[in-house]
């Protein structure tokens, strides 16, 4: 079926809030609550829309929950915004460059009027970071209309019917930096839409500066069929769902047209099964006006050129490089590249075989997590200690999970303390054999046992009882 489709992706960035230093962790419990109302603001085209806004707002009261470290007076709309988060700006520009966009010479922060209460201010702060870009899919080029950096809205926590209706929001999500990517309506089939969304997602994750996990990326679709109208579908949860959602929507519009009805321009919500339901009529053009509390940001060309040189490697390219260069399986490479351990992998391969490192970082960690081990406590140095110990043959390959587990339980421990506990008869035997092989000349001495015992004890460094070492050494010498 012939369709015309554009995709809009909203991606949270992995940094603190956009206009204050609050954490965007979303881990806390709310502390206190305030209650607000919003008032209509006059529009550009006379005051007709004010009456409608007034009616809407008259019947609504908004409660906002504050979180100790995840919101402050800025989110409460009790303090002007602080300076734009420079890290978020850099990431947004980086993404725009990866999407081949033009970057304006000066970025202007705007206020976009939003009166559903999801912004305490009554507007969302947003800035155009890039325009006129493109990406390639197997179907051809898809134009990138715009890349914007904006504030995430507050999360709705509940509604209480009544007059007025009480809508409760959490301020922990409000103000998290969000990159919004909008494509041109260049997409003409369902699969192309899926591929485009997937590619955009891959590019975003390649930066390693975006949040991952539930609710951190949202996909909206715009679709029309010949003779139909533009319908916006909000909140498509997964990539695999995209073709299905589009197909259902195209069919819905088609059947309406067949029945002689004209589809209405509207916003619909995507359900997990791919169907959609009516949300609201399509709003008119967004009303934007300058955020006078934030000065425009001049983009320095030399800064931009420097940024162009340090654009991250695309995940797809990285996977290909690992598969070809280190002989990782495609599956393992892709899991590793998408995880937060990609950088660690490239660091650790100076101590061990890349295949082993990849396996430890993906599968061993997965296993430990399943056992309930707190793997998030493991730092780069812990992995380094482990692979160093392996290279020095102080531990065997099989000892890796156990050692990582011990580090997770006791992150401050020194490797000597942990490895010493792990020397069993097998390891002692291995060590004894190694020394016997290395120093065959000592067998010629009057008391070879004493000479070898001294050497072995020196290497064991108290990690096994002397009696055990003596027993094994005697056995080995008598062979």
């Amino acid at each position: 079926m012939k369709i015309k489709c554009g995709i809009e992706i909203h991606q949270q960035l992995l940094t603190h809030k956009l206009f204050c230093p609050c954490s965007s962790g979303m881990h806390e419990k709310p502390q206190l609550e305030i209650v607000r109302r919003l008032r209509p603001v006059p529009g550009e085209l006379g005051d007709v829309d004010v009456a409608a806004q007034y009616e809407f707002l008259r019947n609504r009261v908004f409660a906002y929950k504050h979180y100790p470290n995840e919101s402050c007076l800025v989110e409460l709309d009790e303090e002007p915004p602080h300076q734009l988060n420079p890290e978020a700006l850099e990431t947004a520009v980086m993404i725009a460059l990866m999407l081949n966009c033009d970057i304006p010479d000066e970025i202007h922060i705007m206020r976009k009027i939003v009166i559903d209460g999801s912004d305490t201010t009554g507007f969302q702060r947003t800035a155009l970071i890039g325009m006129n870009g493109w990406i390639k899919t197997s179907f051809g080029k898809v134009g990138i209309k715009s890349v914007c950096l904006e504030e995430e809205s507050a999360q709705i926590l509940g509604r209480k019917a009544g007059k007025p209706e009480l809508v409760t929001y959490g301020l922990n999500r409000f103000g998290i930096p969000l990159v919004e990517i909008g494509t041109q309506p260049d997409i003409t089939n369902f699969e192309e839409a899926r591929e485009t969304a997937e590619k955009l997602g891959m590019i975003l994750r390649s930066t390693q500066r975006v949040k991952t996990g539930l609710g951190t990326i949202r996909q909206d679709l715009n679709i029309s069929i010949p003779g139909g109208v533009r319908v916006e579908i909000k909140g498509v949860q997964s990539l695999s769902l995209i073709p299905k959602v589009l197909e259902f929507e195209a069919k819905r519009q088609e059947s309406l047209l067949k029945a002689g009805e004209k589809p209405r321009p509207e916003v619909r919500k995507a359900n997990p099964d791919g169907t959609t339901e009516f949300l609201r009529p399509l709003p008119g053009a967004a009303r934007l006006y300058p955020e006078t509390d934030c000065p425009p940001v001049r983009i320095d060309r030399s800064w931009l050129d420097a940024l162009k040189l340090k654009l991250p490697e695309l995940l797809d390219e990285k996977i290909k490089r690992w598969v070809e260069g280190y002989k990782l399986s495609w599956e393992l490479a892709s899991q590793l590249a998408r995880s937060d351990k990609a950088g660690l992998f490239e660091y650790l391969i100076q101590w061990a075989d890349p295949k082993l490192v990849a396996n430890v970082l993906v599968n061993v960690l997965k296993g430990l997590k399943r056992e309930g081990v707190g793997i998030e406590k493991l730092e780069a140095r812990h992995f380094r200690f482990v692979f160093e110990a392996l290279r020095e043959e102080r531990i065997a390959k099989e000892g890796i999970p156990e050692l990582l587990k011990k580090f997770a339980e006791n992150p401050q421990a020194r490797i000597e303390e942990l490895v010493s506990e792990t020397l069993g008869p097998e390891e002692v035997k291995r060590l004894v054999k190694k020394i016997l092989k290395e120093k065959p000349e000592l067998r010629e001495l009057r008391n070879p046992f004493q000479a070898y015992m001294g050497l072995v004890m020196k290497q064991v460094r108290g990690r096994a009882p002397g009696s055990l070492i003596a027993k094994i050494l005697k056995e080995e010498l008598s062979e």
Partner: protein
Amino acid sequence: MYSQAIRKFLERVGVKAGDRVEIEKKGKIYQGILMPRPETGDPNCLVLKLPSGYNLGIAFEKGIKIRKLKAPTEKARKPKPPKFRKDLPGVTLFAVGGTIGSRVDYRTGGVYALMEPEEFLFNLPELSEIARLESIQRPFTKMSEDMDPKDWQVLAKEVAKKLNREADGVVIAHGTDTMHFTSAALSFMLRNLSKPVVLTGSQRSSDRPSSDAGMNLICSCWVARSDIAEVGICMHATSSDDYCHFLPGTKARKLHSTRRDAFRPINSKPIARVWPDGRLETLTAYRKRSDSQVEADVKFEERVALIKAYPGSDPALLEFLASKGYRGIVIEGTGLGHVPTQARKSWIPAIKKLVKDGIPVVITTQTLYGRVNPWVYTNLRILFSTGAISGEDMLPETAYVKLGWVLGHTQDPEEVRKLMLQNLAGEIKERSLPDTFLI
């Protein structure tokens, strides 16, 4: 404003802010509306509003081309303003500052003043059910940090005039920073006050949906039509949009730079709590509305200073003020009213000299809350033995305004002392009550 280079260029090509234009730079073409340059940012960047509504800056460089496009014919819609009800109490709105009486042009970002009472009804339709806005008076408009005693005098006279004619009450939209100075000044200047005079403002500008201006103005109008014949400040009582406090004009202070509930009563309770739906609960005794004529007694001595004592502060400041012809000084002392006394740079000799020369010195406290005391410590006894006047539980700002007003009437030291110690407009309370702290 744009850089001179841009201004010259625009003039030459005949393009001005607000025009629909096409800009060509390095082979790239941008279309949109040319915006005026904001005060911030790079004045050498052209600001273009794209059809999407976003603004962006285009650096002005050699070779840039700009062409005026035909503007789409905009339907000029002048909506019919709603009307006020004739049977409601008449309130006169003085708009002397702040953003309440202004409106943003969302196309250009410019701000312009509302001149007609009816224009308020677009944003605040509720007003039509509360009061009949008689007129909007703009004797002057300025940022509150730029106000000076001359402005208080003009305002007091104009307010009295309106109160003695058609107004049942007056609401004054004012910038917030020095609103408590103006409210104190009007409290002393408006004698025989018989109707409400309500100062209000906004901590979030009125061009945003979350502005506190609307509710503050609505609550102020409820107070203006009430029977509370006092000068006071009516602003948000909490961070929520639930109710406002009407604070006594001489006992209010801005205690936060940005919060909605920045204004608080000091050493007093609010006069009343007011809800936007018109409920009004009085919390203290107050002067009742009457028919008496209001007198604007605006004589004011401007050569009065308000200075702060702090560790290391130099008494030469006092000598300097005296040399410049200052007629009175209010000192914000520490704690109970202390100034450096046995310190390396003691203030005592300088204060002694001022008093001897007939320049009254009033001692207040920078703690704001509480009362100064001349007896508790030796250093206080030394200070007050100089002849300095105790400011009692007066706010330093109120004491400053009061001293200027008193000195406008008499320069006789004994008379000044008597008046400064006497409660004239609710500024001194004899009893300190436990439920007046941090509210």
